[in-house]
Each structure stands twice: as structure tokens, then as C-alpha cells.
């Protein structure tokens, strides 16, 4: 009974906590009033947006998720330098851009979205499209001579970790 009421008020407890933290960061000062307002928002917004979250993805391993975020942040720095080098020192004729199809093992829409975003932010690759049955990602690679290596790195470095986090 109590559980059912709690589930009614907090349909998505992780999202509620997340919204409170985001609200406190937005107002930049922690006072009781702000905290209360944050909690009100944290209850209202998940309630209203509930139909958008049919599956409620569970992040089973928060430590792994933190590790993944740090890894991606580091890769973004590397990506920036790599792309800057290509822009500065490579002529357009020497840049070999290619399309790559990456087969997906991930099945949950949230995990695929994370993977697509990660690919766009990391070295020399942009996600362009998903196949109609969501089993492959179309990736555009700025400069590569070995598309298979790029595909394997995406699968090994990012998809494997996301699979551990989401499934």
C-alpha cells in the first residue's frame, strides 16, 4: 500500500534526485527554500513526463557509469586535438573520409542513444543514421585508411562498457 503510493508520487526516483541536483546547480545557492522548490519540481516533472519513459532504464553499476563518463571526457580532449591536426595539416585531397556500418549488440534505445552521442563526440567519427531495424549504426569517419579498426574500437571501447552499464 505504502509502496504503491510511493511509486505514484515518485514514478522515477533517480530522475527526481537528478532534477533536485540540477535545480540546486542552476540557482547556485543551497537554501531550504531552493531545496523545497527543487523537490517540488522533482516530483512534478517526472509525473508529467512519465509517458515518455516507458521502460525506465536502470543504471545498474554507477561506478562503471562514472568510469565511462571520465573515459569519454578524456577521449573528447584527444578527439579535439586529433581533429585540429587534420584541419590544420592535412589537405582535403589527402583526407580519406568513409562511411562505416557498425553492427549493434545493444538493444535498449537509451544505450543506443548514449553510444551514438559518444561516437559523435570522440575521435574523427560522427553518427549519421540508424538502420531501420535498429541493428546497425551508420558512422561517418573523417580520416581513416582502416575502417574495420575504427569499427572494432567503437565496439570494444564504448559498446562493451555500455552493455555492462545498461544490461
Amino acid at each position, binding site marked *: 500500500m505504502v509502496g504503491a503510493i510511493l511509486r505514484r508520487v515518485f514514478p522515477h526516483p533517480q530522475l527526481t534526485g537528478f532534477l533536485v541536483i*540540477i535545480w540546486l*546547480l*542552476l540557482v*547556485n545557492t543551497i537554501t531550504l527554500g531552493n531545496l523545497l522548490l527543487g523537490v517540488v519540481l522533482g516530483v512534478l516533472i517526472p509525473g508529467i513526463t512519465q509517458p515518455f519513459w*516507458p*521502460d525506465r532504464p536502470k543504471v545498474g553499476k554507477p561506478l562503471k557509469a562514472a568510469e565511462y563518463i571520465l573515459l569519454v571526457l578524456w577521449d*573528447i*580532449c584527444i*578527439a*579535439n*586535438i586529433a*581533429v*585540429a591536426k*587534420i*584541419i*590544420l595539416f592535412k589537405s*582535403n585531397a589527402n*583526407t580519406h*573520409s568513409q*562511411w*562505416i*556500418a557498425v*553492427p549493434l549488440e545493444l*538493444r535498449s*534505445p537509451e544505450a543506443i542513444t548514449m553510444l*551514438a*552521442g*559518444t*561516437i*559523435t*563526440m570522440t*575521435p*574523427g567519427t*560522427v*553518427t*549519421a*543514421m*540508424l*538502420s*531501420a*531495424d*535498429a*541493428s*546497425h549504426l*551508420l558512422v*561517418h569517419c*573523417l580520416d581513416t585508411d582502416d575502417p574495420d579498426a575504427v569499427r572494432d574500437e567503437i565496439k570494444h571501447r564504448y559498446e562493451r562498457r555500455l552493455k555492462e552499464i545498461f544490461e
Partner: protein
Amino acid sequence: MSLIAEIVISFMLIVGGIFGLLGSWGLVKLNDTMRRLHAPTKATTLGVGGVLIASMVYFAVFMERVSFHELLITAFLLITAPITANFVAKAHMHRDVKERDLPPTGGDYGWAGYDEVGDGKQPIDTK
């Protein structure tokens, strides 16, 4: 102490400026819409990142209050940049890219912009 902080802030501002400039230069130099997408999604992230870190250090050292807005800006930027890039890529592909120019999916269905799954099969279980 404040000298060190000033050096750090200036350094981050310069790094940010350089990468911002490089991202914009990439837009000018690269010769194909898909290639052009690479410049603003990557080089600019570090450009904005550098300015934000400089701003955080400035507020922490000289204004003596910790500001978290920069972290939020970073987070929102990291969330929105890939989505923008994806939509630009999709619009470009619908206009100018033929399906025969793309590699095959390797699965039973084509790419989402060119093929669709019939009613019989629901690819992602959204309940």
C-alpha cells in the same frame, strides 16, 4: 597565488580561443557537408570547455565563491552537440546522399532514412 591563478586563467582562455578558431576554420576549409560536421562537434567542445574552466577558476579565486553553472553548461553542451550533429547529418543525407553511396547495413533492413520496417515487426520494444 593570484599570479598562478591569472596564468592558469589566461592559458585556458588562449587554449579555448585557439580551439574555437580552429573549429570555425574547419568549417571553411573542409569541402563536404559530412566532413564539415566534424569541425564544430569536436574542436569547439574544447574551445568552450577552456573558457568555462577559466571562468570557474576566476570565480573561485577572485570572487571567492564556487560557481557550478559552468558544469551545467558543459553537461548541456555534451548532451546537445551530438543531437544537433545528427540532425544536420540527417537533413543533409535526405537532400544530397543517395542510398547507393552508403555501405550496406549488413542486416535485413536498410538505413532508417531510406527504408522502413513494416507493421509486422517492431524493432525496438517500446511497449
